[in-house]
């Protein structure tokens, strides 16, 4: 007796159809799973057989072959448990076959027959909808997340027994309504108005947020680098629905979603500790989980104490920073995760931390060089804005001066981003920071006067060719903030001030 159930498995955030084929025939009783299962799927035959028995059904005492087609692609995870169980039961003719058509069965089984939540339910449901499934039966704990997808009937189930009874029309389960897109944004507990003084940095961060530029904050301990970096997310515009789905998909695969907020509405802010490994940062491991950079997709990756990171770890960022996606190859699998993030990094100017500040610095030139050399040049080249954070004076943080709130800055940032989106409609990019050299020629044209100034500046400070394009991009953003069509002399003059490390 043969029974086939279609199911969806994930490869990165892309899904593909898996045929769960079960054949029950006479012979020496055994149960085998073929079709490149990983260890967790291979174990599933034990879970499934016990779960079937404990749900009060008969587990056929025959020769059972389970094939997961296409057999050349590796499959992982426990999400196929339910499909396998239903396929075995249906091969045994214990279930109404007509009800199985166009239905997706997803979920892990416990040996008591209960369904257990799995990671990645959102991308699976989205892909299932795309592939023409009409309904999905999923573990009850997952339904809040799955109900974001519309046009597919989501049926929450508690146990295998319930599923079978539902398929045999013995009970009915109400499908979960795809909820109103609850778009209540999380309120932040902090605001940019908490930052006193520091006008220069605020301006730099506003530019960074407007143009999506990567940013490096250099400053002595206690100057407020981390404080300001955390507040960047409060001035970034909200995620659009599509962006939000994209982010939620990745978070779903990584198992980062909580039950309370199934849809990620705030831009992610990821700040890994500097002891992080290369794999954890870019993604990988045996199951090819998305790394921190993919979790930060459409949001902010904040690397505090940049020189303390492993050099190799940091250099692994070079490609993703350029491409906005990461290709991970492991054991014959080839997975690509998106990772378009804004990199905010912070560091001390020297080992003792006080170089250039009012406190005397204890370091000599060599140790400073050595310290700065821990961050590779190519990585620094990808950071458009490099600014120095000063310590705040006592009278500054005690002053009653009203500082600008995040909401006001956010409005401005939104406006500037809209200008850019409008301009780059046909280029397939959104922000100034994504311009490539061809597009820069088109959109960042300088007049004679500006060119002369920039040339003079370059001769004087002996800047690199890469610095040139960074200054141009930042100048483009400043011009946009000024609602100016052309890049003007003043914009260039300001932009060169945000390359502090080049002069150092």
């Amino acid at each position, binding site marked *: 007796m043969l029974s086939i159930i279609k199911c969806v498995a994930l490869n990165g955030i892309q899904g593909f159809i898996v045929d769960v084929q079960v054949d029950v025939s006479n012979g020496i009783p055994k149960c085998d799973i073929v079709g490149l299962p990983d260890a967790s799927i291979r174990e599933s035959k034990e879970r499934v057989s016990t779960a079937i028995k404990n749900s009060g059904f008969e587990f056929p005492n025959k020769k059972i072959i389970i094939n997961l087609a296409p057999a050349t692609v590796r499959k992982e995870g426990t999400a196929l448990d339910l499909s396998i169980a239903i396929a075995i039961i249906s091969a045994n003719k214990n279930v109404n076959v007509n009800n199985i058509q166009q239905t997706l069965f997803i979920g892990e089984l416990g040996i008591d027959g209960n369904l257990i939540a799995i990671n990645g339910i959102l991308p699976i449901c989205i892909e299932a909808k795309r592939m023409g499934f009409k309904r999905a039966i999923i573990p009850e704990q997952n339904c809040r997340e799955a109900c974001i997808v519309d046009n597919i009937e989501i049926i929450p189930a508690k146990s295998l027994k319930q599923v079978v009874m539902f398929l045999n029309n013995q009970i009915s389960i109400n499908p979960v309504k795809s909820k109103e897109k609850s778009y209540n944004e999380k309120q932040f507990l902090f605001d940019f108005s908490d930052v006193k*003084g*520091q*006008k*220069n940095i605020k*301006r730099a961060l506003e530019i960074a947020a407007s143009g999506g530029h990567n940013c490096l904050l*250099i400053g002595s301990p206690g100057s407020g680098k981390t404080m300001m970096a955390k507040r960047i997310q409060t001035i970034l515009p909200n995620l659009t629905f599509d962006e939000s789905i994209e982010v939620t998909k990745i978070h779903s695969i990584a198992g980062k979603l909580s039950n309370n907020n199934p849809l990620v509405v705030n831009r992610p802010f990821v700040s890994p500790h500097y002891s992080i490994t290369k794999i954890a940062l870019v993604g990988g491991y045996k199951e090819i989980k998305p790394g921190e950079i993919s979790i930060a997709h459409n949001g902010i990756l904040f690397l505090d104490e940049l020189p303390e990171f492993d050099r190799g770890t940091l250099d692994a960022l070079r490609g993703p920073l350029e491409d906005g996606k990461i290709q991970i190859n492991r054991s014959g699998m080839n997975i690509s995760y998106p990772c378009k993030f804004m990199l905010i990094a912070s560091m001390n*100017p020297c080992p003792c931390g006080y*170089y*250039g500040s009012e406190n005397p610095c204890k370091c*000599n*030139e*060599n140790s400073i060089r050595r310290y700065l050399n821990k961050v590779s040049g190519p990585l620094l080249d990808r950071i458009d804005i490099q*600014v*120095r954070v*000063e310590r705040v004076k006592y009278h500054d943080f005690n002053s009653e001066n009203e500082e600008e709130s995040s909401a006001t800055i956010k409005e401005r940032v939104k406006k500037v981003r809209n200008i850019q989106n409008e301009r780059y409609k046909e280029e397939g990019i959104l922000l100034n920071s994504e311009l490539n050299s061809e597009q820069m020629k088109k959109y960042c044209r300088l007049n004679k006067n500006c060119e002369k*100034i920039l040339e*003079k*500046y370059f001769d*004087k400070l002996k800047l690199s060719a890469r610095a040139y394009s960074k200054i141009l991009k930042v100048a483009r953003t400043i011009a946009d903030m000024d609602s100016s069509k052309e890049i003007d002399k*003043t914009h*260039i*003059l*300001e932009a*060169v*001030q945000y390359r*502090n*490390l080049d*002069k*150092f």
Partner: protein
Amino acid sequence: MEKNVYELFRNDSLFPEQLRCVKPKINKLYAWGNVNLLGSKSVAIVGSRNSSKYGDFMTRKIIKDLVKYNITIISGMAIGIDAIAHDECLRNGGNTIAILGSGFNKIYPKENAWLLYKIIENNGLILSEYSYNEPVQKKNFPKRNRIISGLSEAVVVIEGSYRSGTSITARNAVIQGKKLFYVPNCVGGKNSYESIKLAKDGAKIATCGSDIYNEIGGEDIDTYELKIKEKNNNLNKAISKLDRESKLVFFCIKKIGSLSCNKISEITKIEIVKVNQILSLLELSDLICSADINNYKIREEFCE
């Protein structure tokens, strides 16, 4: 071994005259590069390996002047002041001699290997008492200091701590009867010991290249002074051309010393955006320069 490597014996005509009377006796010298530099007018720069920002700055300043007077710079190619001395000299197109404490094939420190090749490329000279493959040994470095002081007409001590290699070179210079200069430094600083001691012992003070040049004698330096004056005039003209806000920023920096854009904006009450633009403009017109990351100071020509 590369070409241009010579072995100079005591009785060779090329063997520098000044080194014949140096004790302990030098029997053989390995030279690599432009041996014609051996007879030229030269000044040795010695200083700390753990130099401070001030020391680095003074080294560059003095060497820039000396190179203009066509004086050969001698140093030991260690890290710190030595490396900066060679580097600044080459940048300004001057002649330099590096004296190693090890063989040519065993450069120490390895980070400075690039400097060695740069010296050779730029028609400089490398000298060593030790054969090509002589390994790096601690005891050899104090020994080579007698060559540094012996070969030069004057020795300039920039920074040195108590009982450092710098003090050995200074002592050698006194024994060999060379002119000795010190660059003033603050009392009690970690690298000040040597210069303060030399000041007490009656060495001459040097704050710029002409202090040294005047002592060791040479051509007329008035033309050079004139040039500086002319430059100053030009700069004064540049200041008078500035608009009101730029002038405000400039004099603000001039009055207070090194300042960051935040503070300038605070003091002058000019918007930060505008301050940033003005700073770039002033920097372009050579009126200010960056002191360290994001701090500005006026160029030292204006200090007086």
